[in-house]
């Protein structure tokens, strides 16, 4: 039976893992290798590692760190942050990542997606879109880790990325990031209904039921969660958790 993926999202800043709220106020939560080991031991479906300073610092993600994590884990790794070129992608795939996640550069130059897909296959690239909701209720895309607004809306960008050959699309609500108030289901659904590739919902997961809603009500094929798996309790103590396979199967059922 096919089951939708539940993906812990780890944000890297420097050598440490951080958690943000609406893409701001990064708070150190631990060591990435240790966290990866724990998620691996809990049987996580996949791991998403995003270097949130990379684009702003004009570099790609830390290849050495990816290699270390890949060597210790038995599930796929999707790695992103500051990826600018086919060479950046090659380095990451050779280090052990299954897929790369490209956001800013893909939106500024969709041809990069096509080049990566041609070289390594569509399955090797996730197109990532970050969006904020405007006062008029519509959504706008932001790049550079939420700091630069684009004219386009997420559905337009999703269509372009699909046309260029992405294997999957990840849609993140900047407004919901770190709030644990639930995914922006309207945003997720608008993107999921506009493309035929798998869509990963991201930003705002606060409960296992939120994961279910994204899959069953917003047509996401997979869900990413950060705070939900890294924090525990009202005071947000750092504690890594991950649902058991039984929990996931009874929650998400068959896609």
């Amino acid at each position: 039976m096919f089951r939708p993926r539940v993906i812990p999202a780890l944000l890297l800043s420097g050598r440490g893992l951080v958690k943000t709220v609406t893409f701001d106020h990064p708070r150190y939560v631990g060591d990435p290798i240790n966290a990866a080991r724990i998620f691996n031991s809990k049987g996580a479906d996949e791991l998403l590692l995003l270097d949130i300073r990379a684009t702003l610092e004009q570099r790609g993600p830390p290849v050495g760190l990816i290699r270390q994590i890949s060597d210790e884990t038995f599930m796929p790794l999707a790695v992103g942050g500051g990826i600018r070129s086919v060479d950046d992608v090659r380095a990451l795939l050779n280090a052990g990542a299954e897929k790369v996640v490209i956001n800013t550069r893909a939106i500024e130059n969709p041809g990069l997606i096509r080049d990566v897909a041609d070289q390594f296959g569509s399955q090797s690239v996730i197109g990532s879109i970050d969006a904020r909701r405007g006062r008029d209720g519509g959504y706008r895309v932001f790049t550079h880790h939420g700091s630069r607004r684009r004219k386009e809306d997420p559905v337009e960008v999703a269509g372009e990325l699909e046309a260029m050959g992405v294997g999957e699309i990840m849609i993140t609500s900047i407004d919901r990031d770190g709030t644990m108030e639930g995914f922006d289901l309207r945003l997720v659904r608008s993107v999921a209904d506009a493309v035929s590739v798998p869509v990963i919902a991201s930003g705002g997961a606060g409960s296992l039921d939120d994961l279910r809603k994204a899959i069953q009500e917003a047509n996401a094929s997979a869900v990413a969660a950060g705070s939900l798996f890294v924090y525990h309790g009202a005071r947000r103590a750092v504690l890594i958790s991950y649902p058991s396979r039984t929990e996931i199967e009874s929650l998400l059922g068959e896609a």
Partner: protein
Amino acid sequence: MIVIVDYGMGNLRSIENKLHRLGAKSTISSDPKAVEGAEKLILPGVGSFDAGMRNLEVRGLLPALQQRAVVDGIPLLGICLGMHLMTHKSEEGNAKGLGWIAGETRRFDFSGQPKKLRVPHVGWNTLTRRGESLLLQGIPQDASFYFVHSYFVGRVDEADVVATTHYGVDFVSAIQHGNLYGSQFHPEKSHEGGFQLLKNFVESA
């Protein structure tokens, strides 16, 4: 020595890493001489069928692979694209496959169906066992494996089908034809089930 064939496609390091954990002697190589000297072979791969065949040819690997896998009959495991290449051809391109197993590679096409499933098939799925094979020994029936593919192998000889998987259609997810094994999923990225499969291959006679 297990040789992991490097033909420029796929994440070889993960496979080598898992073999290393199993205590198996392995090396990654694109050299036909290494293939000729191998005791077992792994043919991994992600990417397109045509590029796969072209890359094998350009590196002069075809004769050595043919010799060891078909003539000498050493164990060979094809993973994902590696398994596709063992068939005769693919809808994806024009190249002829290795033709070692009866089968054709086809694309998932859900356009006519009411429930439009997404392509590629990405995620964890289970196997329905059809035939006996050492590949799946010691692996629980409900084990799941990581898949990521838009193409699958069809028109396979029933005798070669070890397991099928359901994603809109039932497709072949594991095969065995004598000394030739294939898995559509990625054992190197499938937690315990995948690791056990690699162990079974490493420990096979």
